[in-house]
């Protein structure tokens, strides 16, 4: 049944989202031909930004905004679909299918995850298209090697760490979205507003928790000291802070998922 749920979740709106991302990739390809020469020139002569480059800057801004808009639209579509199929009219079908609430949550979360990854991939491809063959690309790769050496780890491990952290960040974002909607829908009226307010409340609380962790580690004083230095590398304690916030994210993910599972199985009220 889980496979069928995943199939149903994917087929429900993949056409629209694929079209959206294909459009962005097309825009990136066009941007590559129009903007890449400007980007290369700007990187090569960082002090020589002439007035004639203004149209390019506008195009670049529009280009970045388009990437953000597609990413935001993807998240909005997926969260709204979750609300619609769990607590809207379509919830009547979702919750009368012979499947468990956990299977429903997992299938929805998995497809959201896939779209997040596609989003990241499109953004990375668009950045590669923009910076391809420029000296910046080579400089960036060298910097990553140097950073890994500075941190005392291999470059491969650094890449693996960044990918792992991104996966955790995606799961965290999805579970927080779903948890907010589930809590918001416990209200009898204004469920969407309640979900949005819940999201921001959770966000504020988690930010406070992260700040407390920052204060408790050696990272914050190191950052303040490092602001007076010209080192290209992050200050000491950089690894620690990733460790602490990583653990916090995992704990919060478990809390969000548990709350979502509990509400959708024990507190469901399609009134």
């Amino acid at each position, binding site marked *: 049944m889980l496979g069928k749920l995943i199939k*149903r979740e994917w087929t429900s709106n993949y056409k629209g989202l694929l079209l959206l991302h294909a459009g962005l990739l097309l825009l990136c390809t066009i941007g590559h031909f129009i903007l890449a020469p400007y980007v290369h020139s700007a990187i090569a002569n960082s002090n020589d930004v002439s007035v004639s480059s203004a149209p390019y800057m506008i195009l670049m801004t529009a280009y970045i905004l388009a990437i953000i808009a597609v990413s935001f639209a993807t998240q909005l579509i997926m969260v709204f679909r979750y609300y619609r199929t769990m607590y809207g009219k379509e919830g009547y079908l979702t919750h009368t299918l*012979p499947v468990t609430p956990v299977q429903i949550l997992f299938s929805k979360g998995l497809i959201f995850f896939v779209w997040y990854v596609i989003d990241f991939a499109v953004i990375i491809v668009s950045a590669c298209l923009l910076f391809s063959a420029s000296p910046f690309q080579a400089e960036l790769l060298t910097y990553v090697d140097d950073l890994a050496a500075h941190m005392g780890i291999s470059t491969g491990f650094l890449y693996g760490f960044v990918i792992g952290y991104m996966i955790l960040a995606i799961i965290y974002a999805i579970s927080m979205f779903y948890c907010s909607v589930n809590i918001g829908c416990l209200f009898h009226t204004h469920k969407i507003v309640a979900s949005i307010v819940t999201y921001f409340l959770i966000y504020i609380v988690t930010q406070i928790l992260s700040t407390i962790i920052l204060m408790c580690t050696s990272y914050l004083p190191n950052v303040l000291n490092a602001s007076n230095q010209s080192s290209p590398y992050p200050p000491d304690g950089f690894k620690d802070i990733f460790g602490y916030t990583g653990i916090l994210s995992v704990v919060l993910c478990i809390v969000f998922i548990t709350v979502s599972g509990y509400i959708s199985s024990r507190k469901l009220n399609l*009134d």
Partner: protein
Amino acid sequence: MSTLLECKNLSKRYEKGMALSDLNLKLESGRIIGLLGPNGSGKTTLLKLINGLLVPTSGEVRILGNTPGVETKSVISYLPDQTYLSANQKVTQIIDTFADFYADFDRSRAYHMLQKLNIQPSERLKTMSKGTQEKVQLILVMSRRAKLYCLDEPIAGVDPAARDYILTTILNNYAEDATILISTHLIQDIENILDEVVVLQNGKLKLQASVEDIRMERGVSIDTMFREVFKC
């Protein structure tokens, strides 16, 4: 006949008050049962509780001995009182979904009924009238070989000509050991097919009796009895 559904001290409270209050009810298999009552009597709430769409405030509901869950959902076919399918989907896509999830769904029966009612399977729901959408939903629900059919106002939105076909469809498409629980205000239209009535008032059980007994004892039709009991 065996007990198919049992409610024990079932209550459901909403913000505005009690929708169901300490309801005790037993339904047997192989019956067509009318779930009657005035507006706000708790009919829809009861159907939602049976289908696991609401969590009881207290008490319990059991279907074939199980509380609402995967086992019960695979044997109950539920028609809500509103359109609940994605309007962007074609009828064929919805049929595929039903066939995927419900092992008891009979695809050929669904297509046969669609043809009888002149509904094009390739059409999207959003291009259909509200009445046609309701017919599609009823066809999907009745195309399952379920143990219990919960139909919430199945004929309210369709024209009188289609009602006859739908009632015939209901009669012709359920197995002898299955039970149909129909909530409706259009008592006159359905009373000829009913074996039994369950009447709710203010969330409590007002009456549960066979149609034959009511006619014999009171000498009136179910519709007349309802009008007399709930006269404003």
